[in-house]
């Protein structure tokens, strides 16, 4: 079971590293969304600090949405997904490895670059640890929930818009508590509550979502 997990993880990471260009594009998109925002408003420091948490999370949501489309698509196109579906090991294990590889090449990048970008918006350095924690707990949830939507819309042509309609409402708790923790950290309020909720969401997503994704893949391809 662990052998399959590591095999799929290793394979997907190798594929991602061979396509470094795509990784850089997603990172650039995230940076540009956050960097362009101040140009459209006044550059008053208090305004930017106030909207920074929301801005960072919207940037993350949009970037995740763009990259989610491809999560299962390539494997589906050249028939690897078929081999996953008939494998002796549980599909949920394979799917968990795939989403982990996806998170390492998308979510983890936001966890690293997000704090740098909020500094640019004038957020105090003291709030950075909470920002990193919120992103580290929130982005796995985004990846897991997004993978469910991606699996459900796999066999549909031009599923991008439908995918966003499907998963954005499910991202609301992460947005509220993720941005809430950041806001509280900026003004110096207690942040533990919001982070605990994010942690609980993260645990729930990591333990339950793989089974849902596996079921969604089976349903989506049985046509």
């Amino acid at each position, binding site marked *: 079971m662990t052998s399959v997990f590591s095999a799929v993880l290793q394979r997907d990471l190798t594929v991602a590293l061979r396509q470094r260009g795509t990784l850089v594009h997603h990172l650039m998109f995230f940076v540009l969304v956050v960097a362009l925002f101040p140009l459209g408003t006044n550059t008053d420091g208090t305004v930017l600090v106030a909207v920074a948490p929301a801005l960072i999370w919207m940037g993350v949501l949009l970037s995740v949405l763009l990259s989610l489309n491809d999560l299962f698509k390539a494997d589906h196109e*050249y*028939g690897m997904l078929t081999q996953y579906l008939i494998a*002796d090991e549980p599909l949920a294990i394979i799917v968990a490895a795939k989403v982990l590889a996806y998170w390492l090449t998308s979510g983890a990048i936001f966890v690293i670059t997000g704090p740098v970008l909020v500094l640019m918006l004038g957020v105090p350095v003291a709030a950075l640890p909470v920002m990193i924690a919120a992103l580290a707990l929130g982005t796995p949830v985004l990846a897991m929930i997004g993978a469910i939507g991606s699996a459900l819309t796999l066999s549909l042509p031009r599923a991008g818009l439908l995918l966003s309609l499907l998963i954005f409402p499910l991202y609301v708790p992460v947005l509220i508590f993720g941005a809430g923790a950041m806001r509280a950290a900026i003004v110096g309020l207690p942040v533990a509550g919001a982070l605990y909720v994010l942690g609980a969401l993260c645990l729930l997503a990591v333990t339950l979502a793989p089974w849902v994704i596996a079921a969604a893949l089976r349903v989506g391809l049985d046509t």
Partner: protein
Amino acid sequence: MTSRLEIDALVCGHAERALFAPLTATLAAGDIVRVAGDNGAGKTTLLRTLAGLLTPLSGTFRWSTDGRASRAGLGFIDHDNALSPVLTPVENLSAVLRLHRNTSGVDEFQIVHTLAALGLKRVAHKPCRALSAGQKRRTALARLWLASCRVWLLDEPAAALDQASRERLARQMQIMADDGAAILYSTHQALNVTDTQVIELSR
């Protein structure tokens, strides 16, 4: 002869539309069964249904390996080769083989050796997008040599293969059947194997 698969009045199709008349057949160890039929007769649909990828419209089928009702040890090679264009044949094969319990121990040396025997030594470490259609097909078929599955479902294994590769494939199928594997395959090219049974799909 131990029975590997029992098909009972199976009907497959898409969206409630049956593709062929109810099918009843048995597949035993050592059998090589050819599924025959025109384009669109439902050969691929039948194989995908038996692999558990599609739900049959009606009827049942039962896998049994060593007396237990399970489809563990099933190998399935369909039209798609399951090769990532950015990975090399060795990396692709190693990933696919590790999905199955009985082949997770196959190492890179064995894979390279098998690829060399199939005339793919030069491209074994090149990205698969640089390979020709026939070379990709041969890479996918290398699993027949590397994985010791007890049941093989092969959908058009000979597509895009040259004469020499077709003969090699036929010889390997015969060897696998002699070793006790059960093979269910479809083909439009003549393959020089002794079919124990032919399933004709008709409406």
